[in-house]
């Protein structure tokens, strides 16, 4: 009976071998995939096992952690001034996951990032608990406060402010906003209810929408800055003060429709400077249709349109359509028809003009730090593109400065500072049935010639009288206070 016995022994050996192979497959080959499986609750347990690192603005954390009991998760996130910073931080909730910076920099904040491996190993040996690192942002708390408070006074809207020379984001506000602390835990009573109240389904104001990055609005007349840039760059006009051949009224090509101007303004054969100063639809509509879809699209793309931006939080791509006929191109060139832009995008437009034609890649994370504040990664400014030559940029600057000096944007004037800007009032809704959006984009230049801030403001104010809605009236004061805040904090 020994021969079959030996075979059975081999068979048993094969059974054990099969288990060993399977185990190696699971615990070696598949281990990482299983660890990161979306259903693996260990990820969230780990995320809240120790206090998270902080998100830092101006050297002070805007986040915190507090110990909780009675669940898998030991610490929960707290936020200082949550609604104001929510468009920057995003949320980290035990029950509902994380988004924006809280999610993108999760590895650093929890301390699990591979770049902290050496330190974690050291901690393990010395018996220290793992700690989270910090995310240092580029934001300016005074500017953010000015932006948020300004929006709060005037209604729904968003603000994005950029430092033109580097691309650092200085303010990123959205209103109405939400407090991420209100659902940071995982209690079904308080946290789930708070979460549910903030959802778009139950709350038409959609407070969790990050309007500065994720909402596109028709940019209205502020887009005329892009159209002017295209006219200069493609050589259609080379001088801000040369007369354009624009009849008044002007009928859009291929149609019998006249493009109207707002009010009775001197747009007949107006120079680019005057056209921007009074916001002439006819001039810029004609410029757009003369240049044609391709050339307009090319310049718009150079300013960042049609691409998502990663700051590192993703922003929605702004729209300038392809394949439009001349009349549609004309409408698009004054920021109507299909054209749509995020506040960040319009801030990029202003910042490229202010930075002598060079567009810097916008970013909001200055530095990632380990738990003991040693730098892990520093963001270096990067050039995204050069939509304008320096000469043309200066021409456009002088035009935008005229707008603030004696045009539609006078309410953004700041004493002792050169401000360039452009107002916008964007029609939207079917047959313009809804209240228009008030836009203002601007930059400020201080005495030494540097431009510390470019800003874009959009206000959707449903309470204002229709007639009162204008970029100059509603949005420009907010832009002004943001610019002032930045200039003051630089001094």
């Amino acid at each position, binding site marked *: 009976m020994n021969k079959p016995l030996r075979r059975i022994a081999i068979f048993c050996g094969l059974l054990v071998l099969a288990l060993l192979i399977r185990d190696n497959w699971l615990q070696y080959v598949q281990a990482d995939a299983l660890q990161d499986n979306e259903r693996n609750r*260990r990820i969230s347990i780990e995320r809240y096992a120790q206090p998270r690192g902080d998100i830092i603005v101006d050297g002070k954390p805007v986040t915190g952690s507090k110990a909780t009991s009675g669940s898998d998760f030991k610490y929960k996130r707290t936020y200082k001034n949550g609604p104001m910073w929510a468009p920057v931080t995003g949320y980290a909730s035990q029950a509902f996951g994380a988004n924006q910076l809280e999610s993108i920099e999760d590895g650093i904040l929890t301390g699990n990032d591979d770049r902290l491996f050496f330190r974690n190993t050291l901690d393990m040996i010395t018996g220290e608990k793992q700690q989270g690192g910090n995310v240092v942002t580029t934001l300016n708390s005074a500017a953010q406060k000015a932006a948020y408070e300004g929006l709060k006074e005037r209604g729904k809207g968003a603000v994005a402010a950029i430092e033109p020379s580097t691309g650092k984001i200085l303010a990123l506000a959205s209103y109405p906003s939400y407090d991420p602390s209100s659902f940071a835990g995982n209690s079904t009573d308080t946290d789930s209810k708070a979460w549910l109240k903030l959802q778009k389904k139950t709350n038409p104001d959609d407070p969790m929408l990050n309007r500065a990055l994720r909402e596109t609005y028709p940019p209205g007349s502020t887009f005329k800055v892009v159209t002017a840039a295209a006219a200069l760059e493609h050589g259609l006009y080379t001088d801000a003060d040369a007369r354009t051949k624009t009849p008044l009224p002007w009928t859009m090509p291929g149609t019998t429709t006249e493009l109207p101007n707002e009010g009775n303004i001197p747009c007949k054969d107006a120079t680019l400077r005057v056209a921007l100063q009074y916001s002439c639809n006819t001039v810029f509509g004609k410029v757009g249709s003369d240049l044609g879809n391709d050339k307009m699209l090319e310049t718009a793309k150079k300013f960042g349109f049609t691409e998502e931006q990663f700051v590192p939080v993703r922003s929605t791509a702004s729209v300038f359509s392809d394949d439009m006929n001349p009349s549609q191109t004309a409408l698009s060139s004054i920021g109507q028809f299909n054209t749509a832009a995020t506040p960040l995008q319009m801030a990029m437009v202003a910042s490229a003009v202010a930075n002598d034609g060079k567009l810097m890649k916008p970013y909001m994370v200055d530095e990632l730090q380990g738990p003991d504040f040693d730098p892990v990664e520093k963001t270096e400014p990067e050039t995204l593109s050069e939509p304008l030559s320096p000469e043309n940029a200066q021409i456009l600057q002088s035009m935008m400065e005229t707008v603030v000096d004696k045009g539609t944007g006078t309410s953004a004037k700041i004493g002792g500072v050169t401000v360039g800007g452009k107002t916008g009032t964007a029609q939207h809704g079917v047959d313009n049935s809804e209240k228009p959006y008030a836009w203002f984009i601007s930059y400020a230049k201080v005495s030494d010639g540097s431009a510390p801030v470019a800003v874009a403001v959009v206000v959707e104010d449903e309470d204002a009288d229709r007639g009162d809605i204008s970029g100059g009236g509603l949005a420009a004061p907010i832009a002004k206070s943001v610019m002032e805040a930045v200039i003051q904090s630089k001094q």
Partner: protein
Amino acid sequence: MSSTPNTSTQHTSTIGSIGTPSRRNTELGLLVFAVVIPIFAYTNVGLAINGQVPAGLLGYGLGLGLLAGVGHLVVRKFAPYADPLLLPLATLLNGLGLVVIWRLDKSERLQQLAERQYGVFSPSAPNQLLYSAVGLALFVAVLIFLKDHRILQRYTYISMVAALVLLLLPLVPGVGADVFGAKIWISVAGFSIQPGEFAKIIIAIFFSGYLMVKRDALALASRRFMGLYLPRGRDLGPIITIWAVSLLILIFENDLGTSLLFFGMFVIMLYVATERTSWIVIGLLMSAGGAVGVASFASHVQARVDAWLDPFGCYETSGACEQIGQSIMSFGSGGVMGTGLGQGHSDLIGFAANSDFIFSTFGEELGLAGVMAILLIYGLIIERGVRTSLAARDPFGKLFAIGLSGAFALQIFVVAGGVMGLIPLTGMTMPFLAAGGSSVIANWALIGILLRISDTARRPAPAPASNPDAEMTQVVRP
């Protein structure tokens, strides 16, 4: 190995016959490791969970040491030539099992789960320690009262009846208890027993006795058909019976594991007894037929197969794969080195984390390294069992030993393979590791029987009587 050309020292294996050393001191040395390692593990868990050496360490160490010591003394006295590895290996597994069960008792998540489901949480480790003591008592009883395993031959048919009764007992209304869908428990005087665990040993007695008598008939009286030796119809009777019984278990008790175990054990023993490959083929065909047949109409089995094919697919919809999905993630999260005892989250598996799924905790907390070590320990136990079978001098002992070892191997494969997602999940326990009285008691008895057979096998043959003729012819002078 000694350099002196002494034949006895060169036969260190179980197979050696004359002059085999008893190896009792080897066993004692190994037992020291088998007690010390779990004590370290216990300390480790305490430090990881509470940051201090657990209060029960002394009691636990003394308890495990006492169990091992008693086991060793009894083996030394009643089975002096028994295999030296089996007792230490079983002790080590039992000790580690106790540590991990205690560790899972400490899990807040499981405590809350128990309170939600039953209103009260009761720790399993103290019971397990008690059951281990009962198991060791049965082990001692086997060694003391079973002087010769061949006595069991007399009870061949009684064993069959007893095994069938045990197996079918859970189906009797009033006695059987339906626990989580599997009717494999009986409730007697407040204790629940899984009779299948004991039936495993008893049915091995029946198979051994029956096959020893019938092996010639089964092996030789057959017709050749398409290259296979097919048995006569009347010899096929018991095989069909076993097949039918295992299918009945599967269908009525929802117990995939036990039916696979019984049928597999029977096929192995049949093959060893008859030395005919045809039995393997027939066995495989029958089990495949049975499995497909049952799987196609039993929803319970179907759900398990689905969960095996796609461990995360039904996660959201039916939740039928929650356990296996959690178990696989447990293994994956452990990685190569594991999280360290007490520091994993295998308790996410929920109920049965300390019984059917205890291996996942080993996987997460000891990692690939630890699991491979555990699997190799099981492999060694199986290997010592097969060696015992090879060394046994009587066909009954051979069959009995291979039956028990084969069943043990199948059980390891089915359970570990199930929780690792290699095969569909069945509901069985990892011998010695899992919480569960029946399992640990029955497996201690199994080890006791293997030790008894190996003692008989390795016992030196009596010295041959001196031949009177030799004296006469030795001195021949020319």
